[in-house]
């Protein structure tokens, strides 16, 4: 054991270098910690991260065309729609062979509804032609060009072939283009016809309304949170129940209640007419517009603002305000210079919470928003559950997600995310 005296790495009791031994111990510690959180991590991965990644992927995925029409896609490679004519017999023969298989597997109609998002009429084109193709014999019935055109004259339309060719890749940026009111035109990306532009406008409106709702929540919530945190515990607990009460009421019930209150023959208008403030013929329009959406959503999201504000304000010692006043500050200065800065973490947390929740809301706007008070999430919901254009829904969702991340980053730069406190 004479080695131990020599200069060199310090050794642990078991003879390994101390550094390595320490590392091993630390690693074991880390592994243990990882094992402890493994169930949660796995849960989050499976139920949260994976679905989001899968959704993001749908916004560019476009395998259906090349999978359903593999031969046609290859045969179409040299085709130029500028000629103004449908492609030649080779392409139609390939199409017949592909459709024969697709009709057996009943995938041709699915492809039809996919391509119908890009060009109106393709859905029925594939459905109709499918019925004819079923009866054809690939050997005996050639050539197919005239047969297809006889089955439906749309096959002679070069624009149909342009769409098939444009969307023949495995991936596409088409959904993202659609999501910002553009489309893949004959000469590359172009703006959609003005009569179809809607998403950019909705995106702007969603931002505007969400910010307005966040601000009005803050304006209404701040005094309430201040009151709650400055009265005796017993009373504040009681009042807290009042804040939480709407939480426990069904969303639909609350929304319908706003209808009863705000509509033209509703309670508020009736009262205003009765006391003579409003003429019976000119009752106020307070619902089925942006105003209705803002009021109803502010009401629904208010607790999300009050709770973080309250928990932050509780930790601000009242003695600070008294100290400021004893040093000669007016009420306003004491509040603005001493109290308010300390409540900012609560404002940050509440605002982020309310903003992110309101950006994704769609049930309430659908019910009380009329035509001017609906959000982009209403269109996402429509594309997911009704039109089945999941790719477009995913692209819109991705854009919304990126927008939230950018805002979050901005907030971090301006206010600092360390400054957010939920309690």
């Amino acid at each position, binding site marked *: 054991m004479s080695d131990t005296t020599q200069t060199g790495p310090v050794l642990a009791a078991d003879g390994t270098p101390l550094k390595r031994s320490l590392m091993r111990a630390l690693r074991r510690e880390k592994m243990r910690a990882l094992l402890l959180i493994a169930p949660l991590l796995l849960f989050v991965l499976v139920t949260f991260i994976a679905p989001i990644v899968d959704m993001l992927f749908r916004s560019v995925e476009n395998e259906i065309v090349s999978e359903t029409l593999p031969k046609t896609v290859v045969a179409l490679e040299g085709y130029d729609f500028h000629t103004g004519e449908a492609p030649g017999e080779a392409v139609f023969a390939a199409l017949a062979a592909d459709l024969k298989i697709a009709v057996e*597997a*009943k*995938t041709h*109609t*699915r492809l*039809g*509804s996919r391509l*119908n*998002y890009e060009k*109106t*009429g*393709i*859905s*029925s084109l594939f*459905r109709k032609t499918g019925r004819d193709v079923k009866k054809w014999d690939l050997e005996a019935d050639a050539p197919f060009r005239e047969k297809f055109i006889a089955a439906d004259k749309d096959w002679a339309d070069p624009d149909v072939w342009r769409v098939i060719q444009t969307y023949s890749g495995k991936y596409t940026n088409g959904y993202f283009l659609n999501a910002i009111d553009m489309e893949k035109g004959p000469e590359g990306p172009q703006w959609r016809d003005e*009569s*179809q*532009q*809607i998403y950019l*406008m*909705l995106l702007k409106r969603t931002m505007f309304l969400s910010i307005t709702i966040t601000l009005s929540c803050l304006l209404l919530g701040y005094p309430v949170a201040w009151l709650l945190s400055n009265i005796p515990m017993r009373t504040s607990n009681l009042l807290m129940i009042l804040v939480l009460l709407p939480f426990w009421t069904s969303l639909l019930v609350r929304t319908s209640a706003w*209808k*009863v209150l705000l*509509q*033209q*023959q*509703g309670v508020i208008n009736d009262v205003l007419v009765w006391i003579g403030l409003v003429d019976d013929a000119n009752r106020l329009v307070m619902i*089925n517009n942006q105003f209705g959406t803002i009021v109803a959503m502010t009401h629904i999201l208010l607790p999300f603002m009050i709770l973080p504000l309250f928990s932050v304000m509780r930790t601000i010692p009242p003695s600070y305000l008294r100290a400021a006043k004893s040093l000669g500050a007016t009420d306003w200065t004491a509040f603005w210079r001493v109290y308010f800065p300390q409540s900012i973490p609560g404002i940050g947390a509440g605002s982020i919470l309310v903003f992110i929740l309101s950006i994704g809301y769609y049930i309430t706007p*659908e*019910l009380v928003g*009329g*035509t*001017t008070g609906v959000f982009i999430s209403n*269109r996402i919901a*429509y594309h*997911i*559950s*009704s*039109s*089945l*254009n999941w790719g477009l829904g995913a692209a819109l969702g991705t854009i919304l997600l990126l927008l939230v991340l950018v805002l979050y980053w901005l907030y971090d730069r301006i206010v600092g995310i360390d400054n957010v406190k939920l309690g």
Partner: protein
Amino acid sequence: MRLTKLLLAASALSLTATSAMAAEMTIVSWGGAYSKSQQLAYHDPYMAANPDVKIINDESSNEAVAKLRAMNEAGNITWDVVDVVASDAIRLCDEGLAMEIDFDSQLADGDDGSKATEDFGELLVSDCFIPQIVYSTTFAYRTDLVGDTPPSSVCDIFDLAKYPGKRSLEKRPINNMEWALLCDGVAKGDVYDVLSTEAGQAQAFAKLDTIKDSVIWWSAGADTPQLLADGEVIMGSTYNGRLFALIEEQKQPVAMLWDAQVFDLDGWIIPAGLPDDRKQAALDYVRFATDTQRLADQAKFISYGPARKSSAPLVGKHAELGIEMAPHMPTDPENAKNTFLYNYEWWADYRDDLDAKFQAWLAK
């Protein structure tokens, strides 16, 4: 020891017994009064005749298409029979998510001996879809708010001079575009040809523009009845069954305007890719639930017309109100003087395009 064995044996026995008993069948429908009518007319008698089947109700029909697609992708289909409207059924059939039905062999013959394809006739709009009821989207008006001459034509909706006040229309292009053209002088037979052109679409939007400021747009079937009951609107469109409830059950001062009502169908589909035993069970249920008597029975509980011709003579009185149901059916000759049938093929093509235009128009 013996006791444990006994217990084990007993529990094993009860397990096998319950699994044999629990031939559960999940049937998806719309909920509310409609599901109740199906429970009374179809489910209860079916379970009485087949004590080993237990029917579980799921009220997801309005998102059935999306959910079936998700189930199909996940490879785990938990539904056995699904109630959808015809346009959804066509979509499901196109996507390969619904099973094709051989109507004559897999459905019961009519009471009058006719084959199923004859009995349902032109209502068989998709290979996957078994029609159940004919319902209509039509108008109703407040009798006390429209003056002395009540509206008699669908075009009165567009007549602000004669009937000033708000009206409610559905927040989608379907039906509204057709009514707009009909009232702008387009013949009934030409509506879809005109609507296929850009100019025709512009014409329909221009007609709708004339009343746009006086319209409250609805998205849930219960909206119009509520708006009518509160006097928010003087007239509005919705499903005729909702209006029946408003008029006959809640006794509101509201009357029907059947002119240019748009017929639509609701019925069953069976999801594609069910295991064989569940498929057989689902087919057995559907065969029972769509026979002549069962379809006529449903009309006792809700004012929707049975889809089989042979059921019409069997429609009787409302089970609770005791009134004759026939005059309240959209298919009654008095009501069906001027009707319109939802053109499924056409809307399958134009829906995406026109919906984008309609939403952009609304937002303007």
